[in-house]
């Protein structure tokens, strides 16, 4: 303790009775215990990264695995059969394992792309409607509906995509593969819409009323107000909603596992079957030999997923805070 201009003051501990002292110690112990508990969240996050990275590390440390699943084999085109051009193939359980990540990246990207193209406009437009135009009663129906949709387990959405969406799309468009990137992407969008809607709606309602009143007073129509004033003011939050949805779409497993067809094909045709990174882990981990290169490879995919979603989450977090700061800083 530094005190300016004063003679040094010695803090004097109040003389406490033994009962009071015991009580003080007990309070300290309880506070310490609760503080220690608060570390669990941080510990969980660190342990997750450490333990999936630990199992993945064998790819780089173990000589046999380094041979079978080197970074070059994962990311560069490989000659599968002599005389044929080099390609990207994911076939980790053949006599000569082929471990290219590229088909999995493309599969993940395709399903994610489809889901975003559907979920972002629907989610943001729905949020705009709920925040700007909906009468109160309608709004009070819409929000619990979104909560119910968000509460549907992903395995049920996967089931719906597999049984209903796939049949409907095949009957309508006559596709060659019943299960494909579009079916899986549409199924995914059902899981992403609530995420986008909720975050976007929060950002839109955070925009102060004075903004809207000023705009309307200047003669703008409600739509012009929503589009040119409210939406730009909430832009970082909307962006955060999209990024968060994107992260969820990359990591979502059961829907893609059930509705994508699970074929690791390199193509940009959205009617082809695909295999995503998350579904690969889910489908192959059950039968893999513990400690084999294939096993480490699946954990390596897990590390990639963890890092992707971590970065996206941090971005979304920064942008959500930015919208709050900007709006409260503007003197709401």
């Amino acid at each position: 303790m530094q005190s300016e201009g004063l003679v040094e003051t010695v803090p004097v501990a109040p003389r406490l009775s033994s009962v009071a002292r015991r009580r003080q110690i007990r309070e300290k112990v309880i506070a310490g215990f609760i503080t220690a508990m608060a570390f669990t969240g941080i510990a969980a996050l660190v342990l997750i990264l450490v333990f999936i990275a630990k199992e993945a590390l064998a790819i780089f440390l173990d000589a046999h695995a380094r041979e079978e699943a080197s970074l070059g084999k994962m990311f560069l085109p490989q000659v599968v059969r002599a005389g044929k051009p080099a390609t990207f193939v994911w076939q980790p359980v053949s006599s000569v394992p082929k471990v290219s990540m590229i088909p999995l990246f493309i599969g993940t990207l395709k399903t994610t792309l489809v889901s975003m193209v559907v979920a972002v406009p629907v989610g943001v437009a729905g949020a705009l409607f709920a925040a700007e135009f909906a009468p109160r009663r309608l709004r009070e129906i819409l929000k619990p509906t979104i909560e119910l949709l968000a509460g549907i387990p992903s395995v049920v959405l996967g089931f719906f995509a597999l049984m209903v969406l796939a049949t409907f799309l095949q009957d309508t468009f006559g596709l060659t593969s019943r299960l494909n990137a579009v079916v899986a992407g549409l199924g995914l969008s059902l899981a992403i819409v609530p995420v986008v809607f909720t975050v976007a709606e929060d950002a839109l309602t955070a925009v102060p009323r004075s903004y809207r009143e000023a705009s309307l007073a200047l003669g703008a129509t409600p739509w012009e107000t929503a589009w040119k004033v409210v939406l730009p003011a909430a832009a970082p939050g909307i962006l955060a909603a999209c990024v968060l949805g994107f992260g969820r779409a990359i990591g979502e497993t059961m829907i893609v596992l059930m509705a994508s067809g699970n074929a690791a094909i390199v193509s940009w045709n959205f009617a082809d079957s695909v295999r995503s990174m998350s579904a690969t882990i889910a489908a192959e981990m059950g039968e893999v030999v513990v400690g084999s290169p294939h096993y480490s490879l699946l954990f390596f995919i897990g590390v990639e997923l963890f890092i992707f979603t971590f970065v996206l989450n941090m971005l979304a977090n920064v942008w959500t805070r930015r919208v709050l700061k900007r709006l409260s800083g503007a003197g709401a």
Partner: protein
Amino acid sequence: MKHTMRRAVGGALTSLTGFAALLIVAILAIILFDVARGGLGHVNWRFLSEPPSDGMMGGGIFPALYGTAALTLLMTLAVMPVGVLTAVYLHEYAPPSSLLARAVRLAVVNLAGVPSIVFGLFGLGFFIHFVGGSMDRLLGYQELHWGQPGILWASLTLAVLTLPVVIVSTEEALRAVPMDHRTASLALGATRSQTLARVVLPGALPGILTGAVLAVSRGAGEVAPILFTGAAYFLPDLPNKFNSQFMHLGYHTYVLATQSPDVEATQPLLYATVLVLLALTFALNLVAVLIRARTRRRASASH
């Protein structure tokens, strides 16, 4: 002229956003209608109380119901104390600009965004191979005893997954307890922990319960994390030890939908299983909504 034009375009675009909102409601209705139509005819007491038979093409789902219940019960027992105390730290104990509190909040946000399949990998690497494997070595088991998939490891994995849900909703519940209650208690000479145990936590109890219910509804539906931490395709016995494997409604749905030898024959069973799973999660969500509405009413009445 120009003005009416502007209004008309605006009105049209406004209805477009309304259409998006309507689409969301319609999709939910379609899913519910389809599942109800396909499953209602098949759900009866026998379906709920019998084990599967005829290689999954007949019988009921009792073991899956039992496994799901046991799994979520263990998960709740594990996650509630940790989640509630973390929230208590964040709201009641952390100094206003505490670095630790900010780090915990950041970790919780990120934990909520980790893909569920990565939780599965974590459960396998940490709980089964590291913790379970170490226990086997320490206890001197020759064969795998704890170092294999089982209901305990699966529920602990789910507990980590649902931790953010519990922390966030508990913190919200603590925020709703009026500051006056704390100051009044402290002014009467109660210590911090006495205030916490007798004033703050009882006041926040409905909100904490809401969090528990939401965690259960989330945890009961997750399949990816239990794929290789303990769920089993079919078991003759109910899980009776912490390291037994178990059947699960969501996993059962996945198996019936993707690995059935005769799709036509399993379809009614599949629809009925999905219906039960959906009814369960919706009932849980409804309970959460009701508790929340009741406390909100009480809170507004007392002011």
